[in-house]
């Protein structure tokens, strides 16, 4: 299991100036079930299409068993793809769809016959050889698409969101079958999905991607239990993500309470992000065990468990999942095990941009000019601009704003929202706010002059 079948090194790609993949490094072991997981636009499909050969990377290399695939056309790559919307040939019946690749290889017809029947059996579609593909249900088409790919005995099977078009029940069944097929065939699977649950169920290894970069690589357990950053924690499963402070080793403060934890090495009094899964917050009736108190403000039955939102005595909202419901309005006592607190390094403390003083009281950054006090600076000075997250104002009325942007990502932090906004200059600005915005909202961005902090930067980029 340790032999690499695919190595991806320094892979980069941009489409008309927009960076879709930046410096991706990844290896895939022979026989592994690897999932590329991320929201739409994260670059996962682009990466799969480059492995298949439908796109060429701008930079970097992809090797299969040590041989570079760069410049090898798709029909010469010993890989096969299962496409998102199946892409079965509508003018061919089931048999001819599956036999398509084998016929091109000029394999004798008895051999083709044998292999087609065998693979049809594997996908449990034995009696469907003569059917027209458009008479098949979505799930059946999906099986044929898989059969058509694996009948060629590819070294790696690429699957591009193969279950996305199926309904929930069908999807669950197919997940089990895919896992079983992977076990039987022993072929390496590279699977692309945006469905975190699917990724957790199927994969040996999950590669979480966002914004053209790999966020985390690990087993499903690793990724779920030890997310490396807020994005991964939010994307995989439900979680309470909270701003905190490392008091010292094995002691962390958040929601204005101190907790024991198992993390070390952050230093003392260092700001951190803390993740607590909703199933890891426990109710207790023992005042000795109680770490903090809260009031239940909603309780919803979710089938197996109840999902409750509670307001802590310190004003934070937390999500809790438990098998027993607690009445809305009741005061409850809660505690968290040290093991269940995941502490993460804060990725950023404030918005920092390179800017330039353009005149008396004027500084340019984010592709536009802002007013701010410029005492001690002169026009043309290069400056480092710092804006605290909570000092950025988002407005409905874009006409009155200094610049505009789209809300790209929303993180609920217990008592406020942490938003990632993509400005029209293509840069990101992070915003802490109590206002409710939706993803993709078009917003105006304003910053008060006194909230823009400037530091002088020498031409070579060194601070004075």
């Amino acid at each position: 299991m340790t032999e690499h079948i695919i190595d991806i090194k320094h892979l980069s790609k941009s489409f008309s100036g927009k960076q879709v993949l930046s410096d991706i490094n990844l290896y895939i072991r022979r026989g592994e079930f690897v999932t590329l997981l991320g929201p739409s636009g994260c670059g996962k499909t682009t990466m799969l299409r480059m492995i298949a050969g439908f796109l060429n990377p701008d930079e970097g290399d992809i090797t299969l068993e040590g041989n570079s695939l760069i410049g090898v056309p798709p029909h010469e790559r010993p890989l096969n793809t299962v496409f998102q919307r199946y892409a079965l040939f509508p003018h061919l019946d089931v048999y001819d769809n599956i036999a398509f690749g084998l016929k091109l290889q000029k394999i004798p017809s008895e051999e083709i016959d044998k292999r087609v029947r065998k693979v049809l059996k594997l996908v449990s579609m034995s009696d469907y050889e003569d059917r027209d593909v458009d008479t098949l249900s979505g799930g059946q088409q999906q099986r044929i698409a898989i059969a058509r790919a694996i009948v060629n005995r590819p070294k790696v099977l690429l699957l591009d969101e193969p279950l996305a078009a199926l309904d929930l029940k069908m999807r669950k069944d197919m997940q089990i079958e895919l896992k079983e097929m992977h076990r039987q065939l022993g072929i390496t699977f590279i699977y692309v999905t945006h469905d975190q649950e699917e990724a957790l169920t199927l994969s040996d290894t999950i590669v979480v991607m966002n914004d053209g970069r790999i966020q985390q690589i690990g087993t499903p357990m690793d990724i779920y239990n030890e997310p490396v950053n807020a994005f991964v924690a939010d994307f995989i499963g439900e979680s309470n993500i909270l701003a905190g402070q490392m008091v010292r080793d094995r002691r962390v403060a958040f929601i204005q309470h101190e907790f024991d934890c198992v993390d070390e090495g952050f230093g003392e009094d260092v700001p951190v992000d803390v993740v607590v899964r909703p199933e890891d917050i426990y109710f207790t009736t023992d005042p000795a065990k109680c770490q903090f108190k809260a009031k239940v403000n909603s309780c919803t039955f979710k089938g197996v468990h109840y999902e409750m939102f509670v307001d802590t005595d310190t004003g934070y909202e937390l999500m809790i999942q438990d098998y027993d419901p607690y009445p809305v309005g009741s005061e409850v006592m809660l505690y968290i095990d040290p093991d269940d607190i995941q502490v993460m390094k804060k990725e950023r403390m404030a918005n920092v941009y390179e800017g330039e003083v353009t005149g008396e009281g004027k500084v340019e950054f984010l592709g536009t000019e802002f007013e701010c006090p410029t005492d001690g600076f002169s026009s043309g000075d290069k400056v480092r601009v710092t804006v605290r997250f909570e000092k950025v104002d988002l407005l409905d009325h874009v006409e009155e704003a200094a610049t505009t942007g789209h809300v790209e990502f929303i993180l609920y932090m217990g008592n406020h929202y942490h938003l990632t906004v993509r400005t029209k200059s293509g840069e990101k600005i992070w915003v802490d706010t109590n206002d409710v915005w939706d993803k993709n909202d078009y917003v105006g961005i304003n910053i008060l002059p006194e909230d823009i902090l400037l530091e002088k930067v020498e031409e070579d980029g060194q601070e004075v």
Partner: protein
Amino acid sequence: MAKKIFAKLYIALILVVLYAPIVFIAVFSFTEAKSLGNWTGFSFSLYKSLFTGGMQNSSGLISAVNNTLLIALVASAIATVLGTVAAIGIFNMKGRSKQAIQFLNNIPMINPDIITGVSLFLLFVFLHISQGYLTVILAHVTFCTPYVVLNVLPKLHQMNPNIYEAALDLGATPMQALRKVLVPVLRPGMISGFILSFTMSLDDFAVTFFTRGTIGLDTLSTFIYTDARKGGLTPELKPLMTIIFLIILVVLLAMNLKKTKNQNE
């Protein structure tokens, strides 16, 4: 209920008017009289002379029919190939050049025949190309190809874009993928484009009229026009039209009955 009866009556009335001239031709094809509307008793003699060539202008009529079919066949075949290749190209184009070519493609469809005819006539005069079969076929290709493009493009849009990639992925070279996957998927559009081109070409009068030159090249339309202008219609046109109409009637009804049957299954 009254609404339904009224609707049926209305449709029936329009159909009666639409078919009256055709029935009129058909009825008078079974009499010997030379001019339309003159009944001199039931007779097959016009049919006989149509097939035995025993009429005054027989060679003219027969070569007109042959020309019409030949030109329609060649022009629509060329248009189908040219239009399909063009549609694949246009489908993969972006931006201004795509808009420009689609704009040019629309012009022959919007232009009245006479403008297409006159403008092509001027082109051939300008280039000193002597007019005849070649110019008529080129002219017919000009007004037929846009319809092929318009019939093939929707098939490309409906097509799962991954189908071509799937063929490559399964080991087909780009040429094999084109032959084994793309063309079969586009075939329905190509066929309806061909049929449409064929009928447009058969029915054309004005464009042929301006581009046929002076070598005496006649299609059925120009033959009828010249004939009618001379005063007397060649009487054998009546049985000919009747036969053509019956063939089309049978073919179209058969096609539609089959389609309805397939849909019901």
